[in-house]
């Protein structure tokens, strides 16, 4: 029983991270209809940036959040202006955008190899191993902090999309870009900002994962696939749907330990990805992602 409670708690804490990873991918796909394959690379880069800031400048990972978010936003905006803008979108884009962004990922990975070698790194702070007592079990301080941030992110995203003029423009462009041009919305600017926000969220997710897991330049592939599972399962345009989908994925992954040998639990996410795509391409909530 205590074991089940432990697993349930760790599933909830993990779900927060998964949701944060997925928002960026979902936002970019929802507005630009581009699957950002560089997402995993940005998560990896965010992890390294946080680690570097901590290691060289002694900056606490939670204090470096603004820096990582701003740098990732700038990177995303530049990526859009320089590369993604020139691609055909949607179904017409076909494999082109996928392959191009995949190329960006390879470059990011190679950059990380050059700068930091292929060795595993981990972001260790003085409180990394500290835990709080909770319902008769212990919960890592870091995991609680990550969950707290993961709760702030969707709230902020909700305010941005529903309460600001920029958010209104983003939602309008997602619905119909041509009409937006007619009423004077600068569609290209909205695309740039959206790509920037999506990338910033990926960078933030990377920073948060760095406080929990060890990483190397190949880090991010599994994270990309998990984000995709969450986006497809949760449906587009639903912040709550994404959160619930992240929880479902985390619960299945964590509880798989009970029935599967430990080395196979990593495959659960991959199998779930295929099953979800094939069985419920429309997601559980919100707008249908496919077609």
């Amino acid at each position, binding site marked *: 029983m205590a074991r089940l409670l432990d697993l349930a708690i760790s599933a909830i804490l993990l779900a927060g991270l998964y949701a944060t990873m997925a928002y960026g991918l979902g936002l970019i796909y929802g507005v630009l209809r581009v699957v950002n394959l560089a997402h995993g690379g940005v998560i990896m880069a965010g992890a390294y940036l946080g680690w570097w800031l901590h290691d060289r400048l002694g900056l606490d990972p939670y204090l470096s959040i603004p820096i990582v978010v701003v740098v990732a936003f700038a990177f995303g905006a530049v990526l859009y202006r320089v590369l993604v803008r020139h691609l055909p979108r949607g179904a017409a884009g076909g494999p*082109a955008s996928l*392959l*191009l962004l995949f*190329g960006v990922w390879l470059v990011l990975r*190679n950059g990380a190899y*050059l700068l930091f070698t292929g060795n595993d790194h981990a972001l260790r702070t003085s409180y990394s191993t500290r835990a709080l007592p909770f319902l008769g079990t212990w919960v890592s301080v870091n995991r609680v902090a990550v969950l707290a941030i993961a709760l702030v992110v969707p709230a902020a995203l909700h305010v941005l999309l529903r309460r600001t003029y920029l958010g209104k423009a983003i939602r309008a462009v997602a619905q119909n870009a041509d009409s937006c041009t007619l009423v004077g919305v600068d569609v290209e600017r909205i695309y740039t900002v959206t790509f920037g926000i999506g990338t910033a969220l990926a960078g933030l997710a990377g920073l948060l994962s760095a406080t929990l897991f060890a990483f190397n330049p190949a880090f991010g592939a599994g994270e990309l696939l998990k984000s995709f599972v969450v986006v497809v399962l949760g449906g587009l345009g639903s912040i709550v749907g994404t959160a619930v989908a992240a929880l479902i994925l985390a619960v299945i992954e964590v509880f798989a330990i009970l029935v599967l040998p430990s080395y196979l639990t990593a495959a659960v996410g991959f199998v779930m*990805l*295929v099953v979800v795509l094939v069985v419920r391409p429309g997601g559980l909530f919100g707008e249908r992602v496919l*077609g």
Partner: protein
Amino acid sequence: MTLAGREPPWRVLAGFAAVVAALAAAPLLLDAYTQNLFTLAFLMIAGALAWNWMGGYVGQVSFGHAAMFGIGGFVAARLMLATPVPAPLAWLAGGLVAGVFALGAHPTLRLRGPYFSIATIGLGEASRLVFTYWERFTGGASGLSLPLVAGGKEALYFWGLALAAAVTAASWAIRRSALGLQLLAIKADVDAAGDVGVSSTFLQDLVFVLSGAVVGLSGALYASYFSFIEPNDMFGFDRSISFVLMCVIGGIGTVLGPVLGAIVFVLLRQFLLASYPQLYLGLYGILLILIILFEPLGLTGLALRVRRRLRRKPPRALHAAGPLASSASANEEGC
């Protein structure tokens, strides 16, 4: 040159026969190192062409073909280790099992575009994990050593050449056949293709199985070529990407593109791994970005562009032919 697969057949066949004959005679002149490089290129050509049937002809970009490559390799290796069957039979068995395994991807074929691609990443990575930990079959992370093939590397050169030649011929034949047209229709619009009577599900299954079987076959020969295989190399994501890269570099969806791409890929990889091992991933990334942005048909597109430019400026005496000549040449190019 058979760039688009619409040139007169006799010219193509003559050129093809000449190249194959020259390559069959080449071992007389080549040193062992170059000959081995050729063998590797043959295997990659076969794999890239087979990937192109799915990724180029049907337009379903797979990031998971390493699964079939690995299964072909390990099935053949296990057969050769456990039984006295001759190597070619073990290779065939590896290819067949890989083809059957590809049938398991059937449910993903209803997905289009990025969804299919991402699902194949999932399938490929799941296969890699399962086979890495299935130690009794794959030997786990320490891999398997294979018995030497009768005739050694020399024999493998000719087996590789035969495979590459057969797959090239098949690619050309598919492109020119009714099947090729049906696949093109699926690529252009799967619903419209269904409306005019193209059985898209069956054809995609068929092509995926054939593609998987050939990739499995090239994986099986690759296993014998290296005489040591290891799941993380055979099933790795980098392996899946290599098929995509070869086709993108050479020209996705064309007949000769994957052949060119595989040759460039093998040479480039050899050179980079020897001189700049720390840069080779990023260089592929930059290559990918540049090709997608500037020349989506890769080397083939570049060749067509050069040829078009050459034809646009004919010698003065022929200027009278004017626009007629240029439209005729555009038709001949068939792009």
